[in-house]
Each structure stands twice: as C-alpha cells, then as structure tokens.
C-alpha cells in the first residue's frame, strides 16, 4: 500500500485554516455595519410587516391580531387610493423634469468657456439646500399677499393665486420646489458623466461635419446613459420618499391634494397613533419602490450602453 503524499495533506490543512480565518476576519470588519443594518434596516422592515397585521396601542404594542384587515381597510378606502394617485402623479411630475433640467444645465456647464466654474457652482448649489430652508423660502415666494409670484401676476394685471391653498394648483407648487431642490445633485453627477466622455469621439464627429443635435443623439446620450440611469433611479427612489416640503408647505392639503403616501403614514403613526394601518402603508411603500426599481432596471438593461 502506498502512503498518502504528505504535501497534499498539508496544503489542504493550510487552505482550510486560511479559509476559516479569512471568514472570521472578513466578518469582523463587517460586523459594525451588519449590526447597525440589522437593527435599523432589516429588523424594522420585518417588524413593520408584523405590526401591519395587528391593532396596536398608542405605544405601538400589538394588541389584537387582525390579519390583513389593515390592508383590506386601506384598499377599500378612498383616502388611500387618493394618496396613491397623488404619489404617482407627483413622481411623474418631478422625476423626468428634474433629470431633463439637470441634463440641460450639465450640457451648458460642460462647454469650455471662461468663467464656467462660477455657473457650475450655481447649478449645483441646491444640493446644499435643506428641505427645511428651501420650503420656507418658497413658502414666502408663494405667499398670497407678499409673495413674489403674486406680485408678478399683479404686475400684468392678473388676479392673485392661492398657490398653496387651491387643490388643483398646490401639487404643482410643491412639485416645482422639489424639482428645484433635486436638480443640484443630478446636475453634479451628469456633469461628471459628461466629462468622462472621450473627447476623441467629438473630434471625429467634428471632422465628419455632423450637427450638434446629431452628436448629442449618437454620442453624448449613449455614452452618458449609465449616468442617466443612475441619476433617474436615485431620483425615483427619492421622489417616493418626499416628506419635508409637504409637511412645511401644505401639510398634505388642501383637501389631501398633496397627501403623498409618506405623509399619510406619518399622520397615521405619529399624529393619530394608528400604528397598524401606518405600518401597512409603510409595507406598501416598500413594495411600490421595489416594483418601480425592478421596472427601471429592466428598462436599463435594454437602453443603457456600457462601454
């Protein structure tokens, strides 16, 4: 009988020990993040699911099991469908507009002109604006008697508009604030993406004598598509979570015309202490964002061009 070679045994031994050691050390480096994500992201998501199946007391303790009653009550409620409609409409108003506006500004700011840095600073400035500060500034501009917008209307002989108090107008007023606030971040990313495009591509296009619009369509947008995709995805997720400007400007009103789902669940949980229905809305919000993001990635697979 031939003896087993020693070297393979030793190699295997070392490998096994190394493997275990690597796992232990890897987890050690990851432990603080895992702990915090577990406590403040995964556990609460599970707990929200759990709470949505119960009626709770004002401290959030489950009292009686109600199964899917919180969900059926929501789906049967006109108020809930209104907030879904408002949320969807708000997202549709704000995301495409702010991305397109940011792209326009990025294309402008990407030109090689004297003093361009000054404009880049201005275009990205809203990234430094908090929702609290922004909402207050715009609230003043929308003020019915002193606000700038009504001053301008009066200048042209037009009547005052109650921007934040008319149900058909308020959502547009809040959307404009949101678009303005989000443009800075999108602009910054898109400008960075534009600057990463190889100049040689444009030189070839210039030699060939193609128009600006042709090179925009055939060079700029395809090469920029990964960045556009990233920016669109981030803004989509952000738009579903809009809260601060609505809290300050309209408090979900007038007549719930700006009552997005986040504001609705906030009121149910922290003003009305109905943690069960609020948790159900939180779960629905999660699935809403998940579905939209999956759709976004499906579209991205077809449209995004990675070099």
């Amino acid at each position, binding site marked *: 009988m031939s003896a087993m070679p020693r070297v393979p045994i030793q190699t295997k031994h070392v490998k096994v020990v190394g*493997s275990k050691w690597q*796992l232990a050390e*890897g987890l050690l*480096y*990851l432990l*603080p*993040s895992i702990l*915090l994500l577990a*406590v*403040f*992201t*995964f*556990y*609460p*998501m599970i707990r*929200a699911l759990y*709470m949505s199946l119960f009626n709770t007391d004002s401290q959030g303790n489950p009292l009686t099991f109600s199964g899917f009653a919180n969900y059926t009550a929501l789906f049967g409620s006109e108020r809930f469908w209104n907030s879904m409609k408002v949320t969807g409409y708000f997202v549709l108003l704000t995301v495409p507009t702010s991305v397109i506006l940011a792209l326009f*500004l990025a294309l*402008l700011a990407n*030109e090689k*002109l004297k003093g361009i840095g*000054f404009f880049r*600073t*201005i*275009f*990205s400035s809203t990234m*430094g*604006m*908090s929702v*609290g*500060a922004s909402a*207050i*500034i715009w*609230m*003043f*501009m929308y003020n019915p008697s*002193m606000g700038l917008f009504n*001053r301008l209307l009066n200048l042209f002989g037009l009547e005052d508009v109650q921007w934040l108090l008319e149900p058909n107008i308020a959502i547009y007023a809040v959307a404009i604030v949101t678009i303005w606030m989000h443009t800075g971040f999108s602009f*910054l990313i898109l400008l*960075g993406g534009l600057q990463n495009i190889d100049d040689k591509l444009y030189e070839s296009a210039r030699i060939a004598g193609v128009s600006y619009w042709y090179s925009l369509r055939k060079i700029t947008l395809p090469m920029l598509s*990964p*960045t556009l995709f*990233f*920016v669109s995805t981030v803004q989509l*997720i952000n738009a*579903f*979570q809009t*809260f*601060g400007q609505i*809290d*300050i400007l309209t408090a979900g009103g007038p007549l719930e015309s700006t009552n997005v789902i*986040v504001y609705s*669940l906030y009121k149910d*949980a922290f003003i009305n202490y109905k*943690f069960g229905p609020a*948790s159900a809305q*939180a779960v629905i*919000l*999660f699935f809403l*964002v998940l579905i939209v993001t999956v759709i976004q990635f499906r579209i991205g697979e077809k449209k995004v061009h990675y070099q």
Partner: protein
Amino acid sequence: MSKAKKTGLYILLTVSGFLMIFPILYAFLISFMQGGEVLQGKIIPSSFSLENYSAAFERTPLFLYIGNTFLVSLMVMAGELALASLAAFAFVFIRFKGRELLFFLFISTMMIPGESTVIPNFLTVQQLGWINSFTALTVPFMASAFGTFLLRQQFKTIPYELYEATRVAGISRFRFFWNIVLPISRTTLFTFGIYSFLTTWNMYLWPLLVTNDESVRTVQIGLKQMQAQELSTDWGVVMAAVIVVIIPTLLLLFFGQKQLRKGLTQGAIK
C-alpha cells in the same frame, strides 16, 4: 467656437443661473429688510442692517441648534466613513465564502425606503430610551450601504497583487488597510465625507420625530418651529435664520463641488 454661439451660450448660462440662484438670493435680500419693506414687496433692501440676524439669534437658540447639528453631522460622517471603509475593505480584499451574498444584502438595504422603517425605528429608539438624545440622531445612520458601495468601487482599483505582496512581506491586513488603502482612496473618502455631512445636516423627518427638546434640537426643526411662530409677522428674521442655516452646507458644496462631482460619478458608473 463662433462668437454668435458663444454669446448664445452665455445668455443661456446667465438666465439659467439666475433662475437657479434666485430663491437663495431673494431670501438673502429679505433677510436685511424691515417688516414694512417686506409687506411692500420690495426686492432690494433700503439698507443692509444686521438687525434681523441679531433678532434671529435672540428669539431662538440658533447657536445651540447649529452646534447640535454640527456635532451630529460630524459624528455621523465619522461613523459612516469608518464603518463603510472597513466593510468595503472586507468585500474587496478578504475573500471569504458568502461575501457576494452578503454584499447583495448590503446593497438591498439601499432599496428599502427610510420611511418604510421609520415607524419601527422610532419605537425601537423609544424603547431604548434614546428619545431626545444625540444617540438617536447618530447611531441609526452610521451604517451606509451607499458609502460601502462607493468605497468598494474605489478599492477595486487597487491591484490585488499589491495586497498579496504585503501579505508575503508579513504586513498585517489592518496595516495594509490603514497605511495603503485609505491614503490611496483619499479622494473618494473626501467625496463620501462631504456627501454624508450634507445629508445629515439637511435631515428633516427623523429629527422631527426623535427630538422635542430644545437641548438636542437641530437647525432644520428649529427653522420649522421659527417659521410656524413668526408666520406673517417677521419674515425678515425668518429669512435671516434660513441664511445662517444654509451657509455651512453651501460653503462645503462650494469648496468640495469638483471633488464631489468626480467622486460620485466614478462611484456611480464603474
């Protein structure tokens, strides 16, 4: 570039710049106006008196709020930088079984809207006795999947062979992390640091929920309170407070804009 095109571009830039900056500029101008001027709808203040600024600090503990928010923002920034860089290092340089799955779990937390977890998190923090404490304002935000993702992208640009060479030379893993990986990644760390500070300084919903005491109040909630109290009486003072609150983040953005643009774009695409 032709002169006509250049002129056209400058016109577009000027108009766009004016529209983007106008709300901030307008707030700045109103912060110097007396009540009467505001009511008359003036655009330019008659004098650049600092009365509204001193009034803003007198009527509300604005210094305290600013101090609180600086403290919270710096703590979260430090925590996020530390935890995200350690996690990113593990994902790139420590090849252990299951790390791809674990990374996917990390990234999946970016898909969970903060507002979906705000109710249970509030109850958790309440049960831990953290209401009205800096702990509640900082600890929940120190783990960052976005930061981990960004730094992982950066760390992947460092050759693995360099790491293997240091292992052969007997340099410890942590020493490689501290003395080589972090210095090489200064730009990305700086980018993420600015981003972290900005988002924490500007946070609104969570501070609204977990603080109701002045001693720990942050500037954003302070502004909301001030606006609610001063409504239709002293817009000049409110705007002065607004200007004071946005100066730190606008300055940070002004000085860090180029870095932020490069760092965030690289992280987004690679």
